[in-house]
């Protein structure tokens, strides 16, 4: 074997591992995002007229735009060396963690559904029902500190889970397709929650008028912040970590999770093995939605203002990408949540330097695409075929 081919083998092996592929996918996503950023940037556009006479200008302007943009992302999401004091310098990373928490929770929930063969697009509806539950407890009940919070979290989880279970029930009982059912239930939940927020005696703020908005949650029900007033980050991130562990334990180690997976892969075999497939659908939807309910609690109980429908912040939808990127592994779902949490946290900083927030959405989609399409990224970069990933066709 020659020197060169030995080297090639090593390169081949490194490239073939999935870690490398993930990193490459992320880089590529940023690369294309950069192109997008440059195309419509004012400064760059200004140089187009002289593109052929002084192409250097365009290049420099483009380069600066990208550096500025992603620099701002890092500053907004990880560490801000320009902060006026230490507190401000470290704020970004706390914001990333804070934003990541609900994405992780909801991502876990959706991923669980996927593994049971349920394409639950009902994240939005489930979050919204969770918000309704948490809001009611947080604004309409008086309880001692801690207990109030726990009750509010449980209310969110139960409401979301019930909503999810109902979708599962409709599927199990009538054979209706869960995609239709969950889409419709999303709209219904949103309208229902708006109505509750609009109605006196339900959730409408005591001083409220015609605007659907609740009172702020009682202080006793809020998720405590970790650093007092210094940072907004609250114990939600720990709940997310706990949820990640719970998901792993449930799906990889427990018999319940095993049965969920069984139904997901082959409902016929599961039935023949004595599993009640229909009620498994209902339970799986409930558990899936329970995780999403945690995200709802996180949203409702960490926001000092009144609660509105928009607090669901499209998490139910973003979580689909998190779940897809994270695949089957709890760890990876958490990592995906962190990545997209960083995007959310960094977005304002990018806007400040004039980068449109939509670009991050595009980057996000591209990253998932590249990770989902190993052959695509291989074709683009002419990467070697990993031997271990041969597809087996039975």
């Amino acid at each position, binding site marked *: 074997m020659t020197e060169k081919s030995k080297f090639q083998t090593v390169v081949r092996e490194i490239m073939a591992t999935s870690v490398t592929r993930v990193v490459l996918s992320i880089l590529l996503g940023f690369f294309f995002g950069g192109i*997008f950023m440059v195309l419509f940037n004012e400064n760059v556009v200004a140089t187009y007229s002289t593109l052929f006479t002084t192409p250097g200008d365009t290049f420099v302007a483009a380069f600066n735009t990208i550096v500025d943009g992603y620099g701002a992302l890092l500053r907004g999401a990880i560490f801000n060396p320009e902060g006026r004091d230490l507190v401000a310098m470290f704020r970004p990373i706390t914001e990333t963690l804070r934003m990541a928490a609900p994405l992780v929770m909801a991502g876990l929930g959706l991923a669980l559904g996927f593994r049971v063969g349920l394409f639950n697009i009902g994240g939005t509806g489930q979050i919204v029902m969770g918000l309704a539950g948490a809001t009611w407890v947080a604004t309409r009940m008086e309880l001692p500190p801690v207990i109030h919070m726990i009750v509010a979290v449980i209310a969110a989880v139960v409401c979301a889970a019930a909503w999810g279970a109902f979708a599962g029930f409709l599927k199990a009982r*009538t054979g209706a397709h869960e*995609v239709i059912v969950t889409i419709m239930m999303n709209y219904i939940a949103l309208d229902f929650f708006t109505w509750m927020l609009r109605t006196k005696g339900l959730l409408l703020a005591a001083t409220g008028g015609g605007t659907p908005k609740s009172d702020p949650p009682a202080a006793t029900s809020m998720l405590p912040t970790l650093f007092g007033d210094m940072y907004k980050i609250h114990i939600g991130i720990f709940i997310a970590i706990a949820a990640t562990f719970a998901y792993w334990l449930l799906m990889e180690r427990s018999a319940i999770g095993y049965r969920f997976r069984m139904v997901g892969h082959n409902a016929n075999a599961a039935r023949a093995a004595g599993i009640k497939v229909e009620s498994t659908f209902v339970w799986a939807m409930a558990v899936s939605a329970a995780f999403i309910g945690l995200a709802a609690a996180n949203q409702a109980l960490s926001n000092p203002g009144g609660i509105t429908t928009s607090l669901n912040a499209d998490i139910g939808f973003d979580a689909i990408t998190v779940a897809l990127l994270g695949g089957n592994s709890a760890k*990876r779902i958490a990592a995906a949540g962190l990545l997209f949490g960083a995007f959310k946290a960094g977005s304002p900083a990018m806007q400040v330097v004039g980068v449109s927030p939509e670009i991050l959405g595009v980057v*996000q989609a591209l990253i998932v695409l590249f990770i989902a399409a190993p052959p695509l990224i291989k074709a683009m970069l002419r990467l070697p075929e990993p031997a271990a990933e041969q*597809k087996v*066709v039975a």
Partner: protein
Amino acid sequence: MAIEVTPGMFSSQQVKPSMKAGLVMAAFTLLTLITFGFGGNPAIVTFQLTEKGHALSVADFAVSSSGFALLVGGLMGVITLVATALTILKRVVPMWLSLIFGLLWVSALLGWLAAGNVVPVSFILSNAVVLAVPIILGALGGVISERVGVVNIAIEGQLLTGAFVASVIGSVTDNLWLGVLAAAIASAILSMALASLAIKYLVDQIIIGVLINLLVIGVTNFLYSQWLANDGQNVNYPGTFDVLAIPYLSEIPIIGPALFANRVTVYLCFILVPLVWFMLFRTKLGLRARAVGEHPLAADTVGINVARTRFWWVTAGGAIAGIGGAALSIGNVGAFGREMSGGLGFIALAVVILGRWQPFYVSAAALLFGFAIIMRVWANQVSPGIPTDFITMVPYVVTLIAVTGFAGKVRPPAASGEPYTKG
């Protein structure tokens, strides 16, 4: 592999014939008899069967609201009995019977809502048709794509692309036909991306769909705020096609204006639905397409190129969905608006399933939505007072009832969502 979506998640289990449909029908019949009939308002309701200022006008149909409800409720009762009898005989309740039942209930509802008022029947119908067209076309794209075995949940993205491109090209060239063409092409190109990622690169089809939606929303929002919003007069002021009334036909009472006084986008839809049906179910190409969607390996063994078949049908489906997008902008409101498809693509997705992957049923299901939209607007005007949020809910609740109560056994194309690979 990073991503694993359980195969077959898009197939659903079979349901045995059950009393469900009968029960739902009975519930609706009772609702009609009790709430609209006995508990209803005896005031006169006028069904206005021709639009004002029509040459061939038919006398308006005026009845007592509650009396009408009792009459219609009686008919509904008869259908309920027939359906129940069929179920007991282990026969399938035909779709058309359910449709007639639905129509009856709707007319009772209209009569109840407008007690003491006028029901502008053809106005409601025309609006329902126009509102349904983007959904029909989007769903038709979905049907085509799933019939060849590629799950398409990117309909939302395709509609949005079509709406955007149609408006921009229509404005820039000042030619709406070019707008429609460009919308079809743009959305077809998007579908080629979907198709090649799914077919060649074996990316999970659901994932690609989600991502395409995400990308299109991102890109159109970006372009809208950076470009269209600032230069609206030049790039986002296309106007709409003229309404073409077909002589004589458009004068037919009730359905004339709804079917024969429309913009070309609607007529395109009227042509495309039967055309797609014909292509899929009557031609050689269609037989092959469906074979590929049902059992790709079997199709391959008789020499059909699975990848190529899928690619071109998915592309064609994309073009049709793109026209649906054009129908949304230059076929209805004119200018493009941020995220103007507003979830219609997801409704279309539901409609594909509700319509059992069959063009005509899909159209009927889409009309249900179009109708629900105009219904909630009109109902709110004639009998205000129901909280707006509940009125907004109506179409979704109706769909939920329809899929759980009536849809019964749905069987997607067997290979839908499954990539095809061989040794």
